């Protein structure tokens, strides 16, 4: 059994930290380009990149075909996301190579529990989002326009180089909504692959099928935030729609890319048993029982401050429902130390991966199989 002792763990963390701290001293990208929120002085003064997935309309209008919102954008206007602009009938992305947040995170933070466990991922995000969740934990990034925040200048190749230099196994497109910086994400993913790095996406899956297919070809794993299983919640709390998200999930299943689902349990709004049960049945029927499902804990923030944090009992109940309905890998998130953080073998029931928060304490998966009984464990393990 490959058990990581506390001493080993600390040594690894210390080494990684030192490497990163030293590397950071020489990183031009690690300081915000726009000090105090001013324009970026470090990037080239070049025009923004042309967007993909749009069509031109009469009168210099364009229709964005990236997400189901299908914004019809007049000249010099922007779409709902605020990061794509029509300039004379050509649609541009304003955030290509302009991430505003860069971090090195454990892959478990995304969370990915069946994808290269205990590796580090180079996280990047730009401004903007194509929905508006009232509980967004990154609202200061996702609900603003690019010019309202300070950003870095980091072209795709440089991002891949930095991720490699930081000893990261992957690049994660995360925090805000990667769909709105689709072009930057895809270009960076290509550059990362050339350097042997993987790519993971943390998304709301509110995206049109065609761009999603392209994305699946360029990245290695996708984590989908399924906000709720009712259209009412999507409309009232997220300003989105449920149906396109479910279609995206079906497409991911069909494509065969690795994906995991996260369901943030918000007290009184989406914690009712019946919709959760229906969701689990749908996942089992339309996707697969092997899809990892994470129930994560809500903390009152952004606009939903008149609510308590999610009771652990509610999370446990949701997990029980999912297990009872036949899903095989069901987790609790944001509850370190809870047994629901661990991966159990569906056949022999033994603990495969023991976690504490973002750390892996014990890993018994060998070449994608259970070390004890040989059961195949779905995921990307190496």
């Amino acid at each position: 059994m490959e058990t990581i002792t506390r001493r080993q763990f600390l040594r690894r963390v210390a080494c990684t930290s030192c490497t990163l701290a030293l590397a950071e001293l020489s990183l031009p990208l690690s300081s915000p380009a726009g000090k105090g929120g001013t324009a970026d002085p470090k990037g080239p003064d070049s025009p923004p990149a042309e967007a993909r997935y749009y069509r031109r309309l009469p009168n210099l209008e364009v229709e964005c075909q990236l997400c189901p919102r299908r914004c019809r954008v007049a000249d010099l206007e922007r779409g709902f996301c605020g990061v794509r602009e029509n300039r004379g009938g050509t649609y541009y992305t304003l955030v290509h190579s302009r991430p505003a947040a860069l971090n090195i995170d454990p892959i478990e933070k995304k969370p990915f529990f069946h994808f290269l466990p205990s590796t580090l991922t180079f996280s990047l995000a730009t401004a903007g989002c194509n929905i508006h969740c009232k509980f967004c934990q990154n609202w200061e990034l996702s609900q603003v326009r690019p010019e309202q925040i300070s950003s870095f200048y980091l072209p795709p190749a440089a991002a891949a180089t930095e991720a490699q230099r930081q000893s990261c196994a992957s690049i994660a497109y995360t925090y805000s909504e990667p769909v709105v910086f689709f072009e930057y994400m895809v270009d960076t993913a290509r550059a990362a692959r050339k350097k042997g790095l993987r790519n993971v996406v943390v998304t709301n899956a509110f995206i049109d099928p065609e761009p999603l297919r392209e994305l699946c070809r360029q990245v290695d794993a996708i984590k989908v935030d399924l906000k709720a299983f009712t259209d009412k919640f999507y409309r009232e709390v997220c300003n989105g729609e449920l149906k396109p998200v479910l279609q995206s999930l079906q497409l991911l299943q069909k494509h065969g890319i690795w994906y995991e689902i996260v369901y943030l349990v918000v007290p009184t709004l989406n914690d009712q048993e019946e919709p959760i049960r229906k969701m689990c049945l749908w996942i089992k029927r339309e996707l697969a029982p092997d899809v990892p499902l994470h129930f994560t804990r809500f903390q009152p923030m952004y606009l939903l401050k008149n609510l308590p944090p999610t009771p652990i009992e509610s999370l446990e109940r949701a997990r029980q429902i999912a297990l009872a309905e036949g899903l095989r890998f069901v987790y609790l998130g944001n509850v370190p130390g809870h047994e629901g953080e661990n991966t159990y073998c569906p056949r022999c029931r033994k603990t495969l991966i023991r976690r504490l928060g973002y750390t892996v304490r014990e890993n018994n998966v060998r070449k994608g199989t259970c070390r004890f009984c040989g059961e195949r464990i779905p995921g990307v393990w190496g």
Partner: protein
Amino acid sequence: MSLQRGPALLSALSLGLSSLISQILLLREMVVVAGGNEICLGLMLSTWLMWVGIGSWAGGIVASRSSAIAIPLHHGYGLLGLAVPASLLMVRSSRFLFGVPWGQVLPLSQILLLSFLLSLPLCLVLGGLFVLTARHFSSPALGIAQGISSIYLGEAVGAFLGGILTTLLLLPYLSHFQISFLLLFLNLLVGLVLWRRSRKHLLASVSLLSLLLLLLFALRLPSLLDRRAWQWHWKGMELVTTADTVYGNLSLLRRGGQITLFASGLPLFSYPDPEAAEEAVHYALLQHPHPRSLLLVGGGVGGGLREALKYPDLKIEYAELDPQVISLASSFIPSEAEVLQSPQVEVRPGDALRLLRRTDRRYDVIIVNSPDPSTLQLNRFYTREFFQMVKRRLHPGGIFSFRLSSSEDYLSPERSLYLATMRRTVRSVFAQVVLFPGPKCIFFATSRPGTLQGDASGLIRRLRERGLQNLYVNSYLLPFRLHPTKISYLNRRLEAEPARINRDLEPVCHLLESSLWASQFGPGEKRLVSWLHRAPWAWGFLLLLLPLLLLVGAQAVRGSFPAGAILGSVFAGGWTSISLEIGALLCLQIYLGFVYRKMGLLLSSFMLGLGLGAWWGRRKQGSEGWLLICQATLVGLCLLFLSTLSGGPLELASASPSAIESFLFLFLLAVGMTGGMQFCLANDFFLRYRTRSSWGTPYAVDLLGSALGALLFSAFLIPRWGIVPSIWMLTALDSLALIFLCFAHGTGRVQEDLGRNISNSKETRDRR
């Protein structure tokens, strides 16, 4: 006339009682809706006065055009009674009215809209009834001006009684709905008295009404309505109990085996929530090499004390601003009641600010575990003045710590400025300051440089040495929480921001927190707030002085500069009185923190002053010199307030809270007296040479000035420049009004104009 005196007095008293009591109730409800933010007090008062002004203007028109005002009058009192519980229902169902999902905080625009709508029915009726009642009871011999003054006096006395009654008798024992039903009864009674055909009918009606009220209370209808309205407010959660305390509203809610205490609508703590509890105390205790004594300010019963008790040798003093928090937690969370019994724990209920001032003890660690400074009440724990007190109470090398909301992955310019302001404030007091990043940014400060650990390694070593078994603050998670890249990113972002210092009377952090709050709701509100931050002085003076200049100028163009000067004086008087009233309320909150309970006393002292001033003004009517004296007194009162604020009332408040309460009480009494007298004198001057359609004009101008004053003082001047510069601006406004009056007086044109107008009106009457 003697037959009229009883009903007139009853009507005026009822108006005053209803006005002030319903104002207190709705202000308290709005504070809860706005998450405790005191800016809503000014907004609410502003819209309140505006609608009362419009109501009085409309009432003036009705009174001048119709001789049959008895019917609208007694119907009006019935409506007034019904409007109070209806307004309470409206505020509790505000989320439903605006289509806001349960659990969502209301945006600034909707809070403004709510205060606008909430006071509409009630205040229109109040304003209209004021003029109609004055018209109804004024005698032909003395005229409408005398009637208005009499009702003004009676209303002021009623308001004073209402404030005292509410604060001392009603609020400690009755719910808001119960109080509103008493008001309903009172106003129906007045309506009946005015409607009466005979004494026999009146007695029968009053008896029936009393029986009905008793029946309602016996059936506990108001209590049930109150509880149902709260349940509606907290839809989806089990309301265990709710309590209105000295400091605000506390609601204890249960869902899924977890209990959450909400203070003024925002979660204070949840139980069980080991993550929050561990983070609250362990980081600070780990920063100290050998902690022996701890002062924990807030959050002890949410699990913080339990975590601190993992240190067997630690003596813990626990101070909670609101003692009801401890008693509620003890009653409904038995395990926390046990913790309070530990011999290591000493509970010190009451304001930590006063505790720190009075105690001789010193501590190794002081932790403030309070929510962010989103209100002035909370901002008191994050100011330079508070930090200086903390420093005096720490042992050499002692650690002070608190936490503020932040973001783990990205810091926006607004968030960075907010954190940078706090860091600069702490640095202005302590020699070494260290910040840890995360969803909550943790601040550590000490007077001895080199004491604080800046990264995870030192804390992990101490965790091991102390054998602490934590779920969250442990050696596995600390390296991620305190990753060097995150620490360096945080420090760099904060260095880039030009920060000010957060002080009691210049609550910069409270403003920045409000700015962050506003920026949540969209670019429009964000732009408005960011403009507010940068507004130049000229804008402040322009917004303050322009209405006065326009008012006086408009009258001067019509050839009556003295009338303009008089109206200008009324306008400035209304503006100043309400601004000083708000200023006093905010000072009470800043120094003592309990405006929620005591606002009634301050409002009533102001109203008593208005009454006394009106009474005195009636005796001096026709004396232009007294009008000048009143205006000059307002300037003097502004200067007195300024000198008191610069004289360090914090010292006074810490030594004796009642001293500052008494000062504010007497100060508002004086403000009210001056304002009341000024209004009576100006009203008399103005109405002597104006037509009947102008009956409501001075009252409306007074209310317009008050409404604008309340709005701009609380939502613009104070947030932009702080309390002291705002009062300097008020002084400028009053001085200008005084100059206009002096000019009109110096040219002798007031008396001349008056004489001419009076003789003109006599000639007109004679011709008719």
